[in-house]
């Protein structure tokens, strides 16, 4: 660890592609992961997120002429996993069943010829770091541990080597909800405390939003969008991202002339105004996403001036405690409106199925979408 850290990104992908037989698992992936960052690869199963992680680990090699992978600035396309000095936590933990907890954790130290006198101390420190009592667990076999404890051993086994990057492949998938929340916080904490770069694979959008500094949303072997959780939630670039991260209502129409701050759109049996977007021209088809909490619901005659409004009929009011979901039929669409539960003042309870209403939103509270890749 003596070498001066490289100034640029820790991991860099330049147009990386990976093909298995005829199946393209990764297509033209470009990304940069910064030092100390908690970076998530998020997407549904089969989107290429795990293959991307395995490319970083070195378990897979990019295609011939399939782009360039750099770790700390060094070209690593052909480097074997054991030459990369990384740590990894596997989905099923992959603890060595024939070795005790302490021997599992010591494995990497032994592989790197750590002086024998140092090993027990470092193993103990690693166990304490993941909050496993060495006196209680050191001699146990993986089979004698619970899922959460195995998870901690797997983490200690990776961290004890002080790797440049910690790769995590859906490590929380097998844990129950409570333990999962606990480990989410702990991982986040370790990331900040150690200043170590974490690359985290998950299909759980909520997990990715709460834990990550930045997220790469993947779909169909490509990166659909890369940004901070707020950027991705507030400004989804494609319909896929808008649907996969949180809930979205979609509205469609055609641009009919500029306004002072955007475009007038004919659509959904009405007209509405949207903010400007570089992809728009007069007459262009447009699709926007509006989050349920960006919408509001009013009596048709009570819509505040200047807001976009579409007339519809209440279909159902769903009580969720903190929020209330009002489902409104607008033409052929079913639009979800999330309204905060404000106690005595909560208005949606005064709406019931069949009431004529208008769903309304402010011009800038929407996201103009590009087509899915």
């Amino acid at each position, binding site marked *: 660890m003596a070498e001066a850290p490289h100034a640029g990104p820790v991991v860099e992908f330049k147009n990386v592609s990976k093909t298995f037989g005829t199946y393209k698992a990764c297509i033209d992936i470009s990304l940069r992961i910064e030092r100390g960052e908690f970076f998530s690869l998020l997407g549904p199963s089969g989107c290429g997120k795990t293959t991307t992680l395995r490319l970083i680990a070195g378990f897979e090699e990019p295609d011939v002429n399939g782009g360039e992978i750099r770790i700390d600035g060094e070209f690593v396309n052909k480097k074997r996993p054991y030459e990369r000095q990384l740590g990894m936590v596997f989905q099923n933990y992959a603890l060595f069943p024939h070795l005790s907890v302490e021997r599992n954790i010591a494995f990497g130290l032994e592989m790197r010829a750590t002086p024998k006198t140092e090993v027990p101390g470092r193993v103990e420190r690693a166990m304490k770091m993941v909050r496993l009592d060495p006196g209680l667990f050191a001699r146990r076999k993986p089979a004698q541990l619970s899922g959460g404890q195995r998870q901690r051993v797997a983490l200690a086994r990776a961290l004890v*080597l002080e790797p440049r990057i910690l790769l995590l492949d859906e490590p929380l998938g097998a844990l129950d909800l409570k333990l999962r929340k606990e480990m989410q916080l702990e991982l986040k904490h370790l990331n900040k405390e150690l200043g170590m770069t974490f690359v985290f694979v998950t299909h759980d959008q909520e997990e990715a939003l709460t834990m990550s500094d930045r997220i790469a949303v993947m779909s169909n072997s490509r990166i659909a969008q890369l940004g901070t959780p707020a950027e991705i939630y507030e400004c989804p670039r494609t319909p896929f991202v808008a649907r996969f991260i949180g809930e979205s209502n979609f509205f469609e129409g055609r641009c009919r002339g500029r306004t002072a701050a955007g475009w007038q759109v004919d659509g959904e049996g009405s007209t509405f105004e949207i903010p400007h977007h570089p992809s728009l021209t007069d007459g262009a088809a447009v699709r926007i996403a509006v989050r349920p909490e960006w919408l509001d619901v009013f009596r048709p005659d009570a819509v505040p001036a200047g807001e976009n409004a579409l007339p519809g009929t209440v279909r159902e009011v769903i009580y969720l405690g903190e929020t209330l979901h009002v489902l409104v039929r607008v033409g052929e669409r079913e639009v979800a409106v999330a309204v905060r539960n404000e106690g005595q003042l909560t208005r949606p309870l005064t709406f019931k199925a069949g009431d004529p209403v208008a769903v309304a939103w402010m011009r800038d509270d929407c996201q103009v979408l590009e087509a899915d890749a």
Partner: protein
Amino acid sequence: MKNQRLPYWLTLGVAIVFLFMHAPLMVLVLFSFNDSKFSMEWKGFTTKWYERLAERQDILDGLYSSLTVGLASTVIATVLGTLMALALARHEFRGRRAMEALLYVPIVTPEIVVGISLLILFMAAHFPLGLGSITVAHVAFNISFVAVVVHARLQGMDRNLEEAAMILGADEITAFFRVTVPQLWPGILSGAMLAFTMSFDDYVITSFVAGTDAATLPMVVYTMVKKNIEPSVNAISTVVLIATTILIFVADRAGREKPLTAEKAPVE
């Protein structure tokens, strides 16, 4: 596990199974100490049949041949069978499925067919019949047993384990010996034991390919029994039985792990 009392009908079942399995062996051991040339009635305790063994050069030669053939064929079959299983379980190649199916052919082929076919092969190849040909024959039928057992073990094994070892700094060879082999060890061991047992007690195939001079223990015993029954047969069988039991016990103990730090008291 909780100590539960078995229902009486299961106790009965277990007792019957136990009797079927072990009564013949008990009788064998018992009569090896019987002071009578005609083994069917008890005439008092003696160890003279064990003393007789030292004089029976044919039995000793047979035992020696069997051990030699057994060990040699077991080692060869275990190495080859394990490699075969690794290829089948870990790599995708043309004809893999066919190979996997063909693995079972030697197991289900009647021994007499295997014996004749091997004899014809040796004759055609002008391969001298003797301990060498017996060893080759045993390797031939043992590879399948080892490969099947090890293959089953490999399929139950998590492939991520090897990757975990590699990311921790182990190269392919180190990962194989430090992680794959220990996982596979019970499979390899039981494959090897199965192979040794098959080799040690094979009569049919062996008698086809033995030629005129070589004789393994089963062949010697069979010849003795056909001529006249002498309780030294019981004695040698008892020796073999005890030796095998010890072997299994030792093999089981050898597979245990040593802890990282010796000074701390074990916890549990």
